[in-house]
């Protein structure tokens, strides 16, 4: 089969590799019909994860048709059309039993690597480095899906791939970020980052009853998309002297009730602190650039909530902890418990409450993956979300 492989920093190759096999009786094999490139794939693309190996198959946002099933699989049948959550969960451990699927203790065969680094054995992820299990990803014609009775969600007839594909990651991720905001009637939610997760967070904040949603970014296409498709207010931080002040202007002088950091550790930002962060990261004095996180803390109203779906992996410094304490902020963050949200969000899509497919800007074949990664990374050509159709 054809598969999109990591060959080194900013080096993607499409290779012909053996078709996947069932390795455990709880596995299924999918023929992939749609797969997307995620912003977090760019962390790998840009060489931020030292446990990637040459030849690793990428991709954690995918769906397809079940073509083979293991002998112990009960819930899924051959021929089912399923969307697969990006994180792999066993369904049996303490964390899975509490719907805290991203903490799964049994899905990562290399759990000792994150345990040695962070003190806990993070769960497995598809196509996302050896510290998260080294599982082959779904940017391929076929993919092996372990714990098939736990993760994959069967899609009813009549739905297109584009409508439901983002149940695999960014829609639940944005939704959990919004849910973490504890939205009450009349609330204003500000979302830093209007990329795919920022879009889904803004959409979800509206779905959960926020009266006013503000999107903050510097990429005009993203802001225009949020404004026209979701009806959010927008702030372009490149054209705004003081984002915190701008947000106060829009919220009666107090600041938003909740602020979402949908940017994470590779923030660009502007100003002196952004330059400081970039320099320190290059010198490896800190692993993450917390430019967005600082702004989020400064922007949030006293007593408000900071919600962080943007990915952080290491240590940061110069955090305005005194401001956070003084305001009495609540912090909520973490890897998405995707399985917890998928069926609820599918219902919203089926009912027509939302249609996440609006974020797709580019459709390419697997063969064009290298070009698509480069274009997405450089945000060229209005590139916001790339979907590949391996079966087409």
């Amino acid at each position, binding site marked *: 089969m054809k598969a999109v492989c990591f060959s080194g*920093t900013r080096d993607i190759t499409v290779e012909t590799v053996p078709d996947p096999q069932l390795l455990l009786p709880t596995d299924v094999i999918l023929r992939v019909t749609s797969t997307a490139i995620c912003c977090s794939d760019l962390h790998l693309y840009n*060489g*931020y994860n030292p446990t990637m190996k*040459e030849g690793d198959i990428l991709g954690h946002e995918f769906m397809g048709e079940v073509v083979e099933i293991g002998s112990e699989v009960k819930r899924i049948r051959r021929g089912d059309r399923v969307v697969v959550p990006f994180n792999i969960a*066993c369904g049996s451990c303490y964390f899975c039993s509490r719907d805290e699927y991203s903490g799964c203790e049994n899905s990562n065969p290399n759990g000792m690597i994150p345990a040695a680094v962070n003190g806990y054995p993070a769960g497995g992820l598809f196509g996302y480095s050896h510290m998260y299990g080294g599982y*082959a990803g779904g940017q391929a014609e076929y993919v092996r899906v372990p714990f098939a009775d736990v993760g994959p969600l069967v899609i009813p007839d009549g739905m297109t791939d584009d409508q439901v594909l983002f149940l695999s990651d960014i829609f639940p991720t944005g939704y959990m970020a919004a849910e973490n905001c504890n939205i009450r009637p009349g609330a204003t939610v500000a979302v830093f980052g209007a990329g795919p997760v920022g879009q889904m967070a803004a959409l979800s904040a509206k779905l959960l009853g926020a009266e006013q949603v503000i999107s903050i970014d510097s990429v005009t296409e993203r802001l225009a998309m949020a404004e026209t498709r979701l009806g959010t207010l927008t702030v372009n931080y490149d054209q705004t002297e003081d984002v915190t002040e701008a947000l106060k202007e829009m919220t009666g002088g107090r600041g938003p009730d909740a602020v979402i950091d949908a940017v994470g550790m590779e923030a660009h930002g502007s100003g002196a602190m952004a330059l400081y962060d970039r320099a320190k990261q290059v010198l*490896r004095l800190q692993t993450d650039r917390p430019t967005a996180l600082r702004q989020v803390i400064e922007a949030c109203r006293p007593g408000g909530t900071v919600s962080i779906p943007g990915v952080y992996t290491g240590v940061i410094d110069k955090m305005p902890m005194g401001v956070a304490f003084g305001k009495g902020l609540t912090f909520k963050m973490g890897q998405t418990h995707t399985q917890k949200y998928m069926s609820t969000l599918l219902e919203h899509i089926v009912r027509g409450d939302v249609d996440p497919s609006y974020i797709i800007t580019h459709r390419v074949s697997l063969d064009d993956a290298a070009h698509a990664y480069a274009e997405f990374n450089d945000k060229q050509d209005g590139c916001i979300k790339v979907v590949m159709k391996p079966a087409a």
Partner: protein
Amino acid sequence: MAEEVIEESSVRRVTRLATIRRPASELFDTWRELSRLPTFMRHVKSIHENGNRSHWVVRSHGGDVEWDAELTINVRPNRIAWRSLEGADIPNTGDVTFQPALQGRGTEMRVTLTYDQPAGVLGELMARLTGDDPQKQLDESVMLFRMLLETGHIATTDGQSHGGPERDSDRPVAQAEGAHT
């Protein structure tokens, strides 16, 4: 000056506590069937049982190491323990206890292993036997034990497809630009 032989020895002790969502009796029975231990203790190649005694073959960097052991405690479902018999290169013991966890959360299992290191051979033999870190070896065994008991299988990617160079061992870890950790 006559050569002085120091006869001191030191005991290296490693322990791990874990809560596993299965009844104590099931955990105990899995440990009691010593021949199954290599399923989740990757450094153990084989264990053959003969009544209260057992013969252990353990992988090490310098070739296999073998010893005989005997059960010292066998109280279902609370505790199982063993110790190596006279003649083992590194005398060692194992002790596993099982207690009901709070609020029906399964069973608290504590595994304790000791290695009696005669002075002088300490570094070399210990490294041969346990790799760099006996604690890490035990932690991994407990992690795999949990997978086996809670899901019925040990999660794996062995045998999956990948691109790049042919054999896994040849596949280089990518050069990191920004350190992840």
